[in-house]
């Protein structure tokens, strides 16, 4: 599903003393089945932006289009149901939202809510549990007996069970250890490929942007200040620093090598790209 923001503005508590700008004239397009990262420091408007994707917030003016669904200031809540079903949101620490007595029932809650029969919902729940790598023997357990990483997978399965076409992930790996982070990012990449999902990832991990994203949107002070491929976004290290963002680790290291006389056609963003570009600039092993 393609997503378009067309001159979207959002005001918090308009016409009150607490009025504050949430989004200011934001326009962009996310192609169907792409992987888009949204970056920017805390308070830049990233979360406000993604809350428009499934109608948790409605634009004060402008239009959000998800596939053929249009969200404007005038959209009524009862029209939001199809948007809710097609756009799955995984918030930070989603395991805090688990509530049911068994893993299976917790995952099936979404499909039941969207009108699937009990049998269909259970079948979707089992499929989603399988997709996130939860073993079958956990399905009858209480979600609260599981480890933190497993609880998070249950919460993500609960979103996937409603068969969304767009998956919005707000810092989904926060609090996980490095192995857990790597496994979860690999899982999202696989889900995207297998289920032809459009993925939107809010993240502070620039290495994840380098490794996974097709394009990135940079937010600052409620404005979209840059959109492009990761290579385009990180091409100007001075600009990146001025936005209080960081370079991917490999790009930062490559910058240091440039000051030592190494040359790169384009700024390498991963260790692999860096090693490839170092061919011809370093001796071969065994010589």
């Amino acid at each position, binding site marked *: 599903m393609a997503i378009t923001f067309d001159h979207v503005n959002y005001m918090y508590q308009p016409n009150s003393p607490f009025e504050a700008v949430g989004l200011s004239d934001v326009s962009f397009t996310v192609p169907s089945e792409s992987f888009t990262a949204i970056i920017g*420091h*805390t*308070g830049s408007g990233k979360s406000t932006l993604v809350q428009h994707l499934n109608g948790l917030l409605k634009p004060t003016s402008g239009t959000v289009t998800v596939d053929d669904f249009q969200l404007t200031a005038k959209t009524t809540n009862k029209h939001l149901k199809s948007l809710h079903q097609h756009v799955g949101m995984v918030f930070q620490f989603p395991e805090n939202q688990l509530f049911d007595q068994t893993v299976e029932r917790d995952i099936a809650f979404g499909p039941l809510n969207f009108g699937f029969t009990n049998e269909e919902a259970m079948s979707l729940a089992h499929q989603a549990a399988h997709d996130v790598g939860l073993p079958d023997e956990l399905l009858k357990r209480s979600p609260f007996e599981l*480890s*933190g*990483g497993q609880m998070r997978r249950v919460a993500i399965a609960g979103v996937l069970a409603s068969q969304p076409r767009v998956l919005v992930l707000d*810092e989904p790996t*926060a*609090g*996980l*250890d*490095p*192995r*857990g982070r790597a496994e979860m990012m690999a899982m999202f990449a696989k889900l995207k490929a297998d289920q032809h999902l459009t993925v939107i990832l809010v993240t*502070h991990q*620039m290495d994840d942007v380098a490794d996974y994203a097709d394009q990135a949107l940079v937010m600052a002070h409620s404005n979209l200040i840059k959109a492009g491929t990761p290579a385009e976004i990180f091409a100007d290290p001075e600009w990146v620093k001025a936005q*209080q*963002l*960081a370079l991917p*680790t*490999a790009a930062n*290291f490559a910058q*240091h*090598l440039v000051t*030592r*006389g*190494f040359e790169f056609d384009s700024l390498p963003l991963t*260790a*692999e790209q*860096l*090693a*490839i570009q*170092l*061919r011809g*600039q*370093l*001796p*071969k*092993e065994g010589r």
Partner: protein
Amino acid sequence: MTKIISVDDLSYQYPDADRPTLNHISFEINAGEWVAIVGHNGSGKSTLVRALDGLIDFKSGTVTVAGTKLSPESVWLVREHIGMVFQNPDNQFVGATVADDVAFGLENAGVPRPEMQKRVQEALEAVDMWQFAEREPSRLSGGQKQRVALAGIIAMNPSIIVLDEATSMLDPHGRQTVLSVLQHLRRSNQAPTILSITHDLSEAAQAQRLLVMDNGQLISEGTPRAIFSDEQLLESTGLDLPFSTKLSQQLAKQGLVTPKQYLTDDELEDWLWQSHLTM
């Protein structure tokens, strides 16, 4: 060197758990030392630091903090020595303003008002947040919140500061500002002992010593260099590899020269430059 923390044969099993979360743990920490505890989620790191503060009712082993053996009777005395900062900055605020929040612990301790105001200001200046004293904590960024949480601890002047993944939810800038506050504290006259739980290798690299936890056991300890050199240990405990190691692996894949031992990122940069010059 004075020992400020001694843990001797500490074991603990949560009720209903099928195996111990802490399994015969022993270690010592010197006054003024910066020690990082690393290990995957569920390895027992957080339980261990909670045991130091008397938040876990362990039955086996002893914990001694600043010469006082931890017991139900001494727990309040021990807690005076320890200030803890947790992962989620939003869960640790009680005051309506930043200054009120930092004053909270001092008020509880019955510190007289003029003294309290002085210490609040000093603590907020130490974390570079004095200009935010009258702001609402909820309106701050994550990095600012953690600096305020840290100021609340600094104001109490504990001899030990424990950070339980205190930078893990912060953006790169926020993480950097918190780490620079810690570096700054280390250089002051009353440098506190720092015990930090972290997954971030660049944060762990700033510690003098690392303790590696796995399945409730302390399986290794050593300098960051010694631990980071042990690729097998890092992989088997679910830790990240240092960037220098990842790059060396990729260089080997391209058939290029690689250093024969672990180098830090800075050392690898030097080494690559030297190799480049021989071309």
